[in-house]
C-alpha cells in the first residue's frame, strides 16, 4: 500500500479523528473554565449580571427567568460539568442514537456558552463551535454520503479561510512586513516569553525570518487542497508544528486541538481533488 492509499482516509475515519480531537480539545477548554470557576460568579470577569446587559431586550418575563436559570452562577458551572462528561462519553463508540443525543446536548451547551460570553472568546472557541455543529449534522445524517461530503468541504473551506485571512491581514501590517512582529509579540508579558524575546532582540534577522515565514505559510495554506498529497502532508505537519509552538510559547493550547481537528477534512478534500 503506497502513501496515498494509506492516507486516503474513508469518511468514517476522518469524522472519527475530527471528533476525537474536537472532544478532547473542547473538553480541556471546558475543564479550564471550571478550574477558574470564580470568574463566572457575580464578582468575576464573566459575570452574567454584567454580560446580560448587552442584550437586555431579550431578558424580560419568562425567557429571562429561563435563561438566567442556565447562565447564572453556579448553574452555569453545572452546564460546563455536563459538557465535560458529554465530551468524555463521545470518545467511546456508542451507537448512533446515543451519540446523537450526546451531540445534541453538546450543541445546546455550546450555544449557551457562546450566548453568555460577549467578551473573551478566541479563535479556537469559534472553530470548536463550527466543528461541533458539523459533527452534529454529520451524526444526524450519518447515512447521507452527500451531506457527509458537504461537511468535509465546508470544514476544509473554513480551515483554508482562517489561514488565508490571517495571512492577508498580516501581509498588510507594517510590523509584520518589517519583521519586528514576532519579536514584539514575544516581548509582551501577555503572549511572550522573556528568554525568546532576549534572543530575538539579539538576532533580529530571526524575527524577520519568522514573521515572513508565518505570513507565507498562512497565505500558502489553501494550496494544501490541490497539492499532491505527499506535499500537502508536509504543509499540514508544518501547521501542527506552528500551532504547537504557539501553544508552548504563547499558551494558545486550544488552537492546537481546534485547528488540527480540521486537517482530516482537508486531507479528504485533497484526495477527492487529486482523484478528479
Amino acid at each position: 500500500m503506497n502513501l496515498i492509499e494509506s492516507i486516503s482516509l474513508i469518511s468514517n475515519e476522518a469524522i472519527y479523528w475530527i471528533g476525537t480531537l474536537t472532544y478532547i480539545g473542547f473538553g480541556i477548554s471546558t475543564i479550564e473554565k471550571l478550574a477558574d470557576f470564580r470568574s463566572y460568579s457575580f464578582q468575576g470577569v464573566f459575570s452574567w449580571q454584567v454580560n446580560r446587559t448587552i442584550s437586555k431586550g431579550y431578558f424580560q418575563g419568562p425567557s429571562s427567568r429561563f435563561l438566567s436559570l442556565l447562565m447564572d452562577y453556579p448553574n452555569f458551572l453545572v452546564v460546563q460539568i455536563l459538557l465535560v462528561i458529554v465530551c468524555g462519553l463521545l470518545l467511546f463508540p456508542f451507537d448512533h442514537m446515543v451519540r446523537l443525543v450526546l451531540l445534541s446536548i453538546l450543541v445546546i451547551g455550546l450555544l449557551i456558552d457562546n450566548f453568555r460570553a460577549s467578551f473573551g472568546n478566541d479563535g479556537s472557541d469559534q472553530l470548536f463551535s463550527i466543528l461541533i455543529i458539523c459533527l452534529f449534522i454529520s451524526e444526524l445524517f450519518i447515512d447521507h454520503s452527500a451531506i457527509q461530503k458537504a461537511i468535509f468541504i465546508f470544514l476544509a473551506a473554513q480551515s483554508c479561510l482562517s489561514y488565508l485571512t490571517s495571512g492577508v491581514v498580516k501581509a498588510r501590517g507594517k510590523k509584520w512586513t518589517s519583521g519586528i512582529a514576532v519579536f514584539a509579540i514575544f516581548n509582551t508579558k501577555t503572549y511572550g516569553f522573556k528568554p525568546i524575546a532576549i534572543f530575538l532582540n539579539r538576532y533580529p534577522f530571526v524575527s524577520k525570518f519568522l514573521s515572513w515565514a508565518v505570513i507565507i505559510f498562512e497565505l500558502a495554506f489553501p494550496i494544501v487542497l490541490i497539492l499532491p498529497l505527499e506535499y500537502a502532508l508536509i504543509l499540514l505537519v508544518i501547521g501542527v508544528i506552528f500551532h504547537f509552538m504557539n501553544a508552548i510559547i504563547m499558551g494558545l493550547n486550544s488552537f492546537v486541538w481546534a485547528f488540527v481537528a480540521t486537517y482530516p477534512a482537508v486531507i479528504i478534500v485533497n484526495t477527492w481533488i487529486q482523484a478528479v
Partner: protein
Amino acid sequence: MGIIIYLILALWFIVSVFGQFEKSKINQFFRGVDHFSLIPSWTFFGPNPGTTDYHLLFRDQFDEDSKSNWREIKLSDGWTWYIWLWNPNKRKQKVLSDAVASLITISKKMELTGLKTTIPYLIVLNYVSHLERSPLSRQTQFMIMESQGHISDTKPQVLFLSEKHNLPDSK
C-alpha cells in the same frame, strides 16, 4: 433535506467570508444578529498585533482625606512549562485584555458619562469592585497603564483613569 443542509453550509461559509471584512456593512449587519458567535473572525494578530502590555491598577478612598496607594492587578501569570496543555488563566487574561483594549478605543470616541454604561467598563469596574480590600474602603477608582514589554527603555504610560465609584454595601 439534503438541499437545506447544503444551503445552510453554503450560506454559513459566505457569511464567514464577509465576516473577515471588519468594516463592511454586511459584516456589521450579520454580527448584529449573531447572538451565538457563529461568524468567525480569523484575523489573528493582524494587521497590527498587540505589542504592548496593559496594566490594570486600582486605589481605594477610605474617607475624604485618605486613600490607598495604587495596586496593580496581575492580568497574566506568566509562562509555565505546561502552558501548551493546560492554561486556565488565559480566558480571564483575554477578557480583561479585550475589555481594557475596547475601553481605550471607546474612550477616544465617547464621553465618560456614556462610557460608564458600556460592557467593557462594567466588566472592569465589577471585577475591581469585588477584589479583596480593606473594610474601610468606601470608593474605588481604576487606572489602565501601558508598558512596552520585557525589553524596553520606555516608562509605562497612563491610558485611562476612571471616576471614583462607590463600593458595594457588603464590603
